[in-house]
């Protein structure tokens, strides 16, 4: 599966990076160090302290440029680049999980301080840069009155939107700036409680199937197992009939899905469980095996049993698949996009991952967009910071990345749900820019 050379390269890179910093466990790659579970009297919490961007901007690699192409949005989460270059942005805030314990009341209050106070838009906003100068002069509402829309996918002339409680579709014609009709329901999605409400979406390469990521209804079954029916899994939905089946299970919160170009394989980033230590459990990036079980709630990273889930199920533990690539614990990966040649040589093969940032850690992690390099279609090597500076050296947080999307013209679109901004990171222009553009537009 993975070449031993790639493994060795990863290990070496990790050892080197670990020597430079505090003795943190190796958290990236295929074999993260997993310390024993630990929890103090109170969970470690460092909540983002929001601040305005002012003159500051996120930091991008040498030669790349970043600009805010849309501001004053209402909680932008995921985006979709349409064939004509227009960008759709899903805005909303979902979930209606009641506080069951005193802890829920207190933790809810504390965590809300690290997010935007703006009310979710429940809409899709369309951004257009008609003259191609990088300024998106048109910012208009494409569709409104949605219910916490999140996942977006375009198949031919059909736009699919995953609301927090149903999968809907719109007819779409190129150049359209407003939906021509109200959405049509494809299928209901599990929405009871919706502790993890985001419904990630990807369409198979042939457009026949839609994959919907459905998060668990709890951190680790503290809302009871009956609340977890049809949760913590990825559904495969027949685009034509709306019929569904579980495609893979035991994925605690699959927050972003993407189809790998070429192979057509489904990949996901998954947020793992909290409150058993600063370095447990790693969020991960993985190819998703049909029928596979990935551990939640009984175990993590393969066969590491989580005793908080009772009664246990040893058979499920034994069957749990080890994910492909650890992103580190608590980074809160919420965005996933496969790169293209137009992103420049250094970033041509791999995935971009948007990391919303931690709360359950004294020393915060995440709060950036990383690039995970691939070789031969598999992750190979240590991740590289691609967009950072969301959390400043002053300890204040100015933005929190969510969805990331590739613009085939050579740009990465990053939704930021704290500053309610959409960022566009453009690759350095090279001589073969137009060539790579046309090839990636195929």
């Amino acid at each position, binding site marked *: 599966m993975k070449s031993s050379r790639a493994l060795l390269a990863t290990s070496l890179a990790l050892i080197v990076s670990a020597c430079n910093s505090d003795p943190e466990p190796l958290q990236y790659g295929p074999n993260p160090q997993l310390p024993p579970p630990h*929890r103090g*009297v*109170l969970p470690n919490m460092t909540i983002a302290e929001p601040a305005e961007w002012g003159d500051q901007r996120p930091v991008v690699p040498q030669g790349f440029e970043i600009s805010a192409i849309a501001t004053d949005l209402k909680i932008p989460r995921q985006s979709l680049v349409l064939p004509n270059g227009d960008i759709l942005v899903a805005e909303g805030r979902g979930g209606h999980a009641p506080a*069951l*314990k*005193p*802890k829920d009341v207190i933790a809810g209050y504390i965590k809300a301080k690290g997010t935007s106070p703006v009310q979710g838009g429940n809409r899709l906003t369309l951004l257009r840069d008609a003259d191609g100068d990088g300024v998106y002069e048109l910012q208009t509402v494409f569709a409104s009155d949605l219910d916490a829309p999140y996942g977006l996918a375009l198949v031919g002339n059909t736009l699919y939107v995953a609301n927090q409680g149903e999968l809907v579709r719109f007819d779409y014609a190129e150049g359209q700036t407003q939906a021509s009709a109200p959405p049509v329901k494809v299928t209901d999605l599990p929405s009871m409680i919706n502790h993890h409400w985001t419904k990630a979406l990807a369409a198979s390469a042939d457009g026949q199937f839609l994959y919907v990521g459905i998060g668990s209804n*709890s*951190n*680790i*079954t*503290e*809302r*009871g197992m009956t609340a977890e029916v049809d949760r913590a899994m990825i559904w495969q939905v027949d685009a034509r009939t709306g019929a569904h089946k579980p495609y893979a299970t035991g994925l605690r919160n699959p927050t972003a899905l993407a189809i790998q170009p070429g192979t057509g394989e489904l990949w996901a980033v998954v947020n793992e469980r909290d*409150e*058993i230590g600063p370095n447990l459990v790693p969020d991960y990036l993985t190819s998703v095996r049909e029928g596979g079980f990935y551990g939640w709630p009984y175990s993590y990273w393969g066969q590491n049993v989580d*005793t*908080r*889930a*009772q*009664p246990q199920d040893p058979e499920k533990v034994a069957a749990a698949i080890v994910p492909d690539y650890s992103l580190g614990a608590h980074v809160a990966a919420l965005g996933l996009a496969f790169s293209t040649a137009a992103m420049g040589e250094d970033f041509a093969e791999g995935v971009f991952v948007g990391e919303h940032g931690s709360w359950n850690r004294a020393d915060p992690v995440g709060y950036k967009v990383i690039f995970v390099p691939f070789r031969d279609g598999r992750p190979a090597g240590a991740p590289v910071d691609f967009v950072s500076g969301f959390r400043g050296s002053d300890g204040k947080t100015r933005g929190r990345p969510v969805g990331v999307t590739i613009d085939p013209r050579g740009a990465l679109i990053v939704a930021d749900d704290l500053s309610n901004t959409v960022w566009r990171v453009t690759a350095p222009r090279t001589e073969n820019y137009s060539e790579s553009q046309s090839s990636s537009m195929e």
Partner: protein
Amino acid sequence: MSVAVETRYSQTIHPLHAVLLAGTVPLFLGAALSDAAYAATYEIQWLNFASWLIVGGLLLSGLALAFAIADLSRPARRTPGVAAYTALLLALWLIGLCNAFMHARDAWASMPTGLTLSIIVTALACVATWLGFNSPRRWGTQ
């Protein structure tokens, strides 16, 4: 011939203090029983019940503690038993707080320590209530 009639009153704890103190017993007992039910069935709702019952017990015992400290600080009401009673109430409250944090853990992470602490706190609440009502009080008005 002359008889000095001395009026003496049994000065018990303040009625509100009494209600708060006695109320801790059913609350902490309820939490312990709920914990036992969760431990036996894995039915998560019992743990939710226990969590709130503990908060109720902490609120009442905290207020009772305030009364006890007030009694302790007034020489007219200070008796040998009051100091021990107050200390016990303080210990009860601190262990109860630990128990509340233990119950803030998700699912089975609060077990079995949560159940053990609930039983200890219930026992302490019973003893504290006994001492609170039974401690010798100063007789008379002076």
